[in-house]
């Protein structure tokens, strides 16, 4: 790390310390429609009506709402945090501008400002496949590069997909995560709004990553996006999602549902970096199904939020399928990152790999909670799990709860390894003896620790993540 870069980081850190949260600005709220706080069947029906949805979707939402009411709150994880969520104090639907904006010029000025502050340059769309920028509950800006359209790739928001590609949506929607999966999946199913829809036709390789940005802007506003990605036979797609939210004093809830379907021989990579401000409850259900010889990779970075409970899952349903989950979690003051991974081997010769890294500081709690399940008949299945935790002070907590359930005897191999440690004194000594200051040396060790994760990210995200980690580490590393 060069000296100038260090000085830059230090200056940034200083400004970071002054402000509460770097991205903690917010625009004045401007809404066309704002539902009342709380949730009733009428609100659910209204949401569906506002969106001009087909009848089956309205029925689906109402049924999901009933499931939401009947499902108990999970009795594990951060039970206290979960029970403190005031469901009646949340706006379940907002629409900040009418209709869908087609070109960048038409996007309202204040919304553009927000994106600029976030550093999403207009030029980015030229380099990247398409930007679906979700601002509050409705997608306001959306562009797809022409060559993607030529390939037959559908990349749109869920609401448009429901209108324009209802046959595909109806066929796959909620087949991976049904509303009765858990309380938050039911909530999302009842009030979902926005999110991405991707369909990649057979034998198509989408070379450039597809991206979407999500924003929460209004007080007490839950964001319930619903993402569905279908990669048809032998196709390949990489989807990137990044989140950042302004700071508010009262709590926000983010409860998304993400469903991925990888058909025979397809590859899906889903990368996320979430940096919700430290008052957001991030309770997300993410699940993928991989058919024969398919490959699904979740790359998952959790930096912000008050409480994250997120366990990306891969169900390996076809012979030779492969699932991979790479995750990193940073838990600072007042944060609880309860993240993990779940892989279900339900077919022979399937393989999986989990790599989880967590950093805790300032009394934060980092938890890895994972499940490997090998069903009877899934012979020759192999799985390798590694979770490492780095603790940066003596008031933080780090938990590892791996579950391994095996019902098959033939050729099954499951390995799990985990370590918890602090920054190694010997490493620091080695680096400082070569003239590097202790702070820089610590920074290098931390960057080295998360390197297996950052190298899997596209360049600009890797740089952003390193910067974010260093900003978050202010105090520990300088």
């Amino acid at each position, binding site marked *: 790390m060069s000296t100038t870069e260090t000085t830059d980081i230090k200056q940034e850190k200083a400004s970071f310390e002054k402000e509460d949260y770097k991205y903690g600005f917010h625009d004045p709220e401007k809404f066309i429609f704002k539902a009342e706080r709380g949730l009733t069947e009428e609100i659910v029906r209204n949401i569906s009506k506002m969106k001009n949805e087909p009848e089956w979707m309205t029925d689906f939402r109402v049924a999901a709402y009933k499931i939401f009411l009947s499902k108990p709150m999970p009795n594990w994880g951060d039970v206290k945090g979960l029970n403190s969520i005031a469901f009646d104090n949340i706006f379940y639907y907002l629409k900040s501008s009418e209709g869908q904006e087609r070109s960048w010029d038409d996007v309202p000025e204040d919304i553009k400002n927000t994106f600029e502050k976030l550093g999403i340059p207009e030029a980015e769309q030229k380099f990247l496949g398409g930007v679906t920028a979700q601002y509050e509950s409705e997608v306001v800006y959306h562009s797809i590069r022409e060559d993607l359209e030529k390939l037959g790739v559908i990349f749109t928001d869920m609401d448009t997909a429901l209108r324009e590609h209802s046959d595909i949506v109806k066929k796959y929607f909620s087949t991976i995560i049904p509303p009765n999966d858990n309380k938050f999946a039911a909530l999302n199913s009842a009030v979902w709004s926005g999110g991405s829809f991707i369909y990649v036709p057979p034998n198509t390789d989408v070379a450039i990553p597809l991206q979407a940005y999500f924003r929460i802007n209004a007080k007490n506003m839950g964001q319930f996006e619903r993402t569905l990605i279908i990669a048809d036979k032998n196709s390949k797609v990489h989807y990137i999602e990044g989140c950042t939210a302004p700071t508010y004093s009262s709590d926000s809830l983010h409860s998304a549902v993400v469903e991925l379907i990888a058909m025979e021989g397809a590859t899906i990579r889903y990368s996320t970096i979430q940096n919700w401000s430290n008052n957001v409850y991030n309770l997300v259900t993410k699940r993928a199904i991989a058919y024969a010889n398919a490959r699904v990779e979740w790359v998952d970075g959790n930096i912000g939020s008050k409480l994250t409970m997120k366990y990306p899952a891969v169900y390996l349903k076809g012979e030779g399928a492969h699932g991979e989950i790479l995750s990193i979690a940073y838990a600072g003051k007042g944060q609880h990152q309860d993240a993990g991974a779940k892989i279900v081997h339900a077919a022979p010769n399937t393989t999986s790999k989990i790599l989880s890294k967590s950093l805790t500081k300032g009394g934060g709690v980092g938890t890895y909670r994972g499940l490997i399940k090998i069903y009877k008949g899934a012979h020759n299945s192999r799985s390798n799990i590694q979770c490492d935790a780095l603790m940066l002070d003596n008031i*933080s*907590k780090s*938990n*590892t709860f791996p579950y391994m359930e095996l019902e098959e*005897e033939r050729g*099954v191999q499951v390995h799990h*390894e985990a370590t*918890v440690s602090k920054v190694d004194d010997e490493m620091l000594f080695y680096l400082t003896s070569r003239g590097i200051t202790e702070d820089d040396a610590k920074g290098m060790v931390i960057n080295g620790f998360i390197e297996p994760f950052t190298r899997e990210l596209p360049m600009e995200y890797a740089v952003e993540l390193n910067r974010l980690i260093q900003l978050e580490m202010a105090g520990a590393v300088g």
Partner: protein
Amino acid sequence: MAKISIQKKTSEDIFEELSRALNMADLKEKFPVRSMESWRRFDPLNLVSPMTDAVRNGTGFSRIKVDDKLNLIMHGAADWKKHDEIFLKKSLNQMELFKSTPETGFFEDFIKKSAGHENLQILRISKNVETLSAIEILPENATGLNLGIFYIYCEEGAKADLNIIKNPGQFDLSLIYIYQENNSSLKIKYLDENPGAASSGVGFIRSIQGNYSRLEAGIYNTSARQNKKLFIKNSLNEFAECKYNGFFAGALSHVDHDFYIEHLGSFSKSELLFKMGILDECYGIFWGDTKIIPNTRGCEGYQKNKNLILGKNARVDAIPRLRIQTEHVIASHGSATGEISDDEIFYLMSRGLSYEDARKLLLRAFFEDILRQSFGSDPDISNLFLMKIWNNLQNIIGMEITA
């Protein structure tokens, strides 16, 4: 001999019968439920029916006997009252330190209440006493209900080596408390054997270790047919060290092993190595939990778990957990589950062994690794305790012992 009821009754009927048998009206409210994390893999309702039968037909606590050697004194609580009331009071006071948790509380409280003073046996290992050879502790009778508390009180500077053989009988509800004062050192080998008949139960081994104390425990379970939940909990104070190694070999059993190690003092160290060989229709569960509390320094916690799945309907769950709440630590765990390696079989077969022999040899090596750590690399063939383990293993796995 009482038989375990296999009749299908509704849980309501069973509860009612048990409430009557135990004379506890509020039994159902207090009884643990499956939604509790510890009981998710072992339904506590499995225990109600055998418990009812055992209470109805039981012959009471199976007393244990010990050779009266050296300065080890073993008495029931009533005898202690005559013999040394001050010690009895002191040890009962210390026993209060073993607090029960909501998940295990029902059974612990039940054992304490039902066993009373009559079925409380206290082994006192006096200050600075050192045993020269291992002390055998054997069950006296083991039919019917096996209920009681065995309390090992190891005084300051004492060093002892104990071999405990436990025949659980039909239904086993037992508590082993180990209290170690500062600087004491204890080697315990615990064999839960069940040569023939089916048995079920809940067992507890709980220990509190004083500063600079050391515990080496071997936990061996060679029950062919068993339906059991075993809770092992250890609390470590400053510079205390504990080392657990053990195995479970089962064919038709369902055994849930809970190891919970709690580091309360700085520079304490724990090592846990547990292997499971799961055959036929066995369901083996390893649950390891290492907790290091805040404001401690230099604690080390290691967990290692290896499992072999050898049966078509065998099932293994491995849950090695770590809960670390301070930074100055070294904590790690590793878990590996698989079948016997084809490469190893091939290597041995290419040297002239039959498939069956090669498999048996590798199985033997899998378990012997554990035994060598407890009994040394050149174990005494005349060691009865070791022979008993080998015989049980042989019965389960069909392994031959050759010199």
